[in-house]
């Protein structure tokens, strides 16, 4: 079994999906969380000056979605055929823009701009995205074929962040609600959700 070491800040952020995937397949790993000073020291030693990074058997991989895909493959959660894998990829990429807008809103320091951005996100950005993805999710509660893939977990992670600001976002979306339920009932994930450090983001 290769030794995995994940390095990120003390936050869920861009590393949490990776941690959820490790948890889903109960793959042991070192969950390293560095503070800002340690990060600045580490930065030039990373492949692209960014975290998260994954060290495995002496190799270093960066770019969070790449690490996600790498662990998904190890965990058997990538998708069964190339077309299944492409579907999962496409759904993941399709959510990135919405994720960025959400992040911008959360990170907005000016209070009145934040209220504006939150209204815009909640009324204009989120509803069409959820309506589109309700159509992509099957009524079995899986986005790709008939079994769990990393995209179900990615969608759960994204909604975990979003429902903190918009608690009733998934009301009325039957398929999406089933996806969330399927993900939360994976034993390794249920355990991680109970035990993980509680952080602001």
């Amino acid at each position, binding site marked *: 079994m290769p030794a995995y070491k994940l390095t990120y800040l003390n936050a869920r952020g861009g590393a949490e999906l990776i941690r959820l995937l490790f948890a889903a397949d109960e793959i042991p790993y070192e969950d390293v969380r560095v503070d800002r000073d340690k990060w600045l020291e580490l930065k030039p030693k990373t492949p692209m000056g960014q975290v998260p990074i994954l060290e495995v058997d002496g190799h270093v991989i*960066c*770019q969070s979605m790449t690490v996600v895909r790498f662990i998904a493959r190890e965990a058997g959660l990538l998708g069964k055929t190339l*077309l299944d894998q*492409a579907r999962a990829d*496409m759904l993941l990429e*399709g959510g990135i823009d919405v994720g960025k807008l959400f992040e911008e809103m959360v990170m907005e320091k000016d209070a009145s701009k934040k209220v504006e951005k939150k209204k815009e996100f909640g009324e204009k950005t989120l509803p069409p995205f959820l309506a589109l993805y309700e159509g992509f999710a099957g009524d079995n509660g899986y986005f790709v074929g008939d079994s769990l893939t990393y995209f179900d977990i990615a969608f759960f992670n994204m909604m975990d962040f979003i429902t903190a600001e918009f608690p009733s976002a998934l009301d009325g979306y039957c398929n999406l609600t089933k996806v969330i339920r399927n993900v939360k009932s994976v034993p390794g994930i249920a355990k991680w959700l109970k035990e993980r450090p509680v952080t602001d983001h």
Partner: protein
Amino acid sequence: MPSYKLYYFHGRGRAEPARLMLAAAGLPYEDIRLEYEQWPEYKPKMPMGQAPVLEVDGTMICQSVAIARFVAKESGRAGKTNIEQAWADMMADGFVDMLNKMADYVWYEEDEARKAEKKKTFFDTTLPEFLGYFEKLLVANNGGGGFFVGDGLTHAEAFFLCLSDDIIAEKPNVLSPYPKLAALVERIKTYPGIKEWLAKRPQTPF
């Protein structure tokens, strides 16, 4: 042999990495270039109302990186092991970050003064730091005289060529501080299949 149809507009843009991988693989495909007036008719048929879309025997895949990766995997050019695939992915993602930063000021910034400022920041600070990391990554692969990952072309090269086309158009000597990257551009341009595509592809402004 599946049938491939690639839908996009009259341009390289977000479809070109897929076109380069299709060319490298020698896979025949219908290179559909829509006029903007046709788009409202096609948009509702696309999975996320966007292009490019690759249609494979009737199944539609959207998202430019997902498409390029799919073609790379279909043709055995995505990296040979799980780690190599991750490296190819990570580099492709890094190039896409840079392409998105350029798109940000080229397409999405309307204020002329802010546009000029963003472009300056990109070329003076963001890009050089990034290219520095990439020169190192290339050299780390056996001295940098080959490709980014393993011993063959992957989708990392396709995204790199698209980025270098755009940055060289703005600043012709932008790669001179990065000799290995500059030499790789030439190697990609003469890669079988890609060389022929580059000679015959429509010349478009973007």
